[in-house]
């Protein structure tokens, strides 16, 4: 038997403009839990997607039990005994537990020439596999009757039923209760004894220390190293994850900070697992960074302030006056703007022109006789912004869908520049954007701060957060865990400590 159950060697993968993985390796021993760690964007998920056949790698080899294998799609992966418990489960909620277990491979029986689904066998088998994990769910009940944690168990049972030799857990505990986490760890312990190799992606240090045998750390799409888990302290792990120099692509801070412009108090989501009890304030001309890991509920909080999500309680004061925000229009009336994280989902109008994408928020300002759009003035505003932000496009009539991500983002920024809010929330303003466009966006932010605008910036990129923010709030699991006011305090280690607090 080979020493390693799974070996991935020299894996490289590029996306247009980005080298996501560069000569990465990963070796997992049988019967162990192998933690894969790194900051957001380090390439962990990309590596796992290559292993599971969702992405096709540009270069590299995968060995299972010492034999080289070709994995081109998830079907191949499952045939070779590789299973993945997804970060976001994608089950068919309305159908039964057993149907979800056997989706795509329903057992059939033949009655004469007709093939029928053998429900009895399917239900019995599902019960059998669940029993193996010590579970007894009603397999005929719709999946939606289970909790997220229970659904995950079904997913694991499905992996086991595939006779999986390697199971990938991509942040499995992010939506589980403590009890469910305990149970998951027990199941993982059982799987260990059966010799299954598990890859475990998580940001939670305590979990990593408890469950894993080996740790591989990645940074910026490269392999940093592999160590036995017991040899590493939390501090050492964090240092290895963030250990890189800050490059000087950030403009120097020349803006001065004025009086308080917005205060929020005790903001709490209507969802139990989301943000709760958040209070902070921001001043004119200040860039306030929001740090934290994926799932810290930073986006949810900002969308709550902007009226995209509902609040259970809490107050928002702008210029000292309380404002009621029920939808984005109310927020805009209060002088708040927001560049959302999900550019395609709720940012751009893909089939409309650049002009229409910029114009949509400002038509009210440019009316003739109270009804007719003043196209010449709108054209001028759009044209000025195209020049100011150096948006690369043949004309303002070009569909925004034809532009690159960076240019699309600049169009969205133009929309808000034209609208001219006092407070601008920027959620991951440079995600998926090349370095040149990033730099330009940083300069715009600096310029806005100089004009006395307050900017809230969510960023999962540590250097960006430290390089741009005057002050940093850190969130962890829906709570504000720390605030870093002094320049000396603002270090990667401090942010990471607050971000992994519980």
């Amino acid at each position, binding site marked *: 038997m080979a020493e390693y159950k799974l070996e991935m060697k020299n894996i490289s993968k590029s996306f247009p403009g980005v080298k996501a993985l560069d000569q990465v390796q990963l070796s997992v021993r049988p019967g162990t839990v192998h933690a894969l760690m790194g900051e957001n964007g380090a390439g962990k998920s990309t590596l796992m997607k290559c292993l599971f056949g969702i992405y096709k790698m540009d270069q590299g080899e995968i060995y299972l039990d010492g034999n080289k294998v070709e994995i081109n799609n998830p079907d191949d992966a499952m045939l070779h005994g590789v299973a993945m418990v997804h970060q976001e489960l994608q089950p068919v909620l309305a159908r039964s537990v057993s149907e979800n277990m056997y989706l795509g491979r329903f057992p059939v029986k033949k009655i004469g020439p007709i093939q029928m689904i053998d429900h009895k066998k399917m239900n019995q088998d599902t019960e059998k596999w669940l029993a193996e994990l010590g579970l007894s769910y009603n397999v005929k009940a719709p999946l939606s009757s289970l909790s997220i944690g229970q659904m995950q168990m079904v997913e694991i049972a499905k992996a086991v039923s595939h006779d999986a030799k390697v199971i990938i857990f991509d942040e499995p505990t992010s939506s589980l209760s403590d009890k469910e986490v305990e149970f998951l760890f027990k199941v993982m312990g059982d799987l260990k004894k059966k010799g299954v190799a598990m890859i475990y992606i998580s940001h939670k240090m305590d979990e990593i220390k408890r469950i894993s045998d080996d740790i591989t750390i990645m940074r910026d799409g490269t392999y940093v190293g592999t160590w036995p888990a017991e040899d590493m302290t939390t501090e050492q792990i964090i240092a290895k994850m963030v250990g890189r120099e800050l490059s000087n692509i950030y403009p120097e801070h020349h803006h001065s900070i004025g009086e308080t412009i917005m205060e929020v108090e005790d903001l709490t989501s209507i969802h139990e697992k989301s943000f709760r009890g958040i209070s902070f304030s921001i001043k004119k001309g200040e860039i306030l960074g929001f740090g934290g890991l994926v799932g810290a509920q930073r986006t949810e909080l900002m969308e709550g302030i902007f009226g995209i999500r509902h609040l259970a309680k809490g107050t928002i004061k702008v210029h000292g006056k309380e404002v009621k925000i029920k939808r984005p229009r109310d927020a805009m009336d209060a002088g708040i703007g927001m560049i959302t994280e999900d550019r395609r989902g*709720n*940012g751009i*109008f893909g*089939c*409309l022109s650049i002009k229409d994408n910029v114009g949509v928020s400002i038509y009210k300002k440019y009316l003739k006789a109270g009804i007719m759009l003043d196209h010449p003035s709108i054209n001028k505003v759009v044209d000025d912004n195209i020049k100011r932000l150096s948006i690369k496009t043949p004309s303002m009539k070009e569909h925004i*869908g034809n532009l690159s991500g960076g240019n699309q983002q600049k169009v969205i920024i133009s929309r808000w520049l034209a609208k001219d809010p006092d407070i601008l929330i920027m959620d991951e303003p440079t995600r998926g954007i090349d370095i040149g466009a990033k730099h330009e966006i940083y300069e715009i932010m600096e310029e806005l701060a100089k004009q006395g605008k307050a900017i809230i910036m969510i960023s999962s990129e540590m250097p960006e957060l430290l390089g741009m923010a005057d002050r940093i709030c850190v969130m962890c699991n829906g709570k504000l865990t720390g605030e870093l006011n002094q320049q000396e305090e603002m270090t990667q280690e401090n942010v990471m400590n607050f971000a992994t607090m519980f």
Partner: protein
Amino acid sequence: MEKTQKQKLTDFLINNGVIIVMFILVIYTGLTTKNFLTADNGMNLLANMSYRLVIALGIAGCVITAGCDLSAGRMIGFGACLAGTLMQKANYSGRFFQSEPWASMGNGILLKISPMNPFVVLFLVMLICALFGTITGWFIAYLSVPPFIATLAMMEIIYGLGLLYTNATPLGGYIESYTIFSTGKFLGLSYLIWIALLMAAITWFIFNMTRHGKYMYAIGGNPQAAEVAGVPVNLTLVLIYAKAAAFYGMAGYMLGAKAGGASVNTGLGYEMEAIAACALGGVSVTGGRGKVSSAFIGVAVLELLKTALQYLGVSPNAQYIAIGIVIFIAASLDIRKYLTKK
């Protein structure tokens, strides 16, 4: 990126395929039959297109926001009946406001309404239809009922109301100042055609020169982004369905004038024809795209196709098949315009 000659030609064929095919069909029909390319036939064709264009313009707004409107046909019938009952000759023997049982209820007094001014009636019909459109739009916008279902419900309600109102009797005997909308001419074109042109101009103005129009495209393009950008999504949707219904009312009014009579079944199935015309002309059923010219081209293609086939002696029954095939081809070509751009 420079495109080769060949690519340019392919693009041109894809972008204008339907129009090119129609041209060929028209020229072929004109050359092989006698009366196709005549002024009379042209006028007739335009008159038939007039109210269909008004319907298509109304429904285009719904389609651009990735919706549809199944109530259009019934709304047209309702509008035509409403208009008809108010503009029958006073001495017409089958007059509605004299003989209908519900109208003579209470005190045995016969309800007599003298024929009303046609412009007042037009306004009333459009207003009443718009009210029903507002209800449909309200359900779609504020209660998130899918447009297909909401307009289906309104279709049933409007049909029932029409039946109750007219007691299912056909109407006729219209005053001349009403039928003149069809028979009267200005610069050689029927008033109906002028009305349609006016509505096209108004719609163009709304689509291109007002906030409402821009918001409509934004909602069709990406409703979530529209909300985030501060577009009054719900209000805009209500306005779109109300406006569409007013257009159907007007189309019913025009149809009544042209036919010189109406029944609740007037306009039956016209909603499908209008949606087909929109799809043919390039109003994207997935939302966000479509112009006034698209609706015009769609209506023209369908009407030309029907007339040409008739002149070529194709059985009316077989014409449906031809129309279906053209819709298939046109819709596939239209989608290609956007697929290739990705």
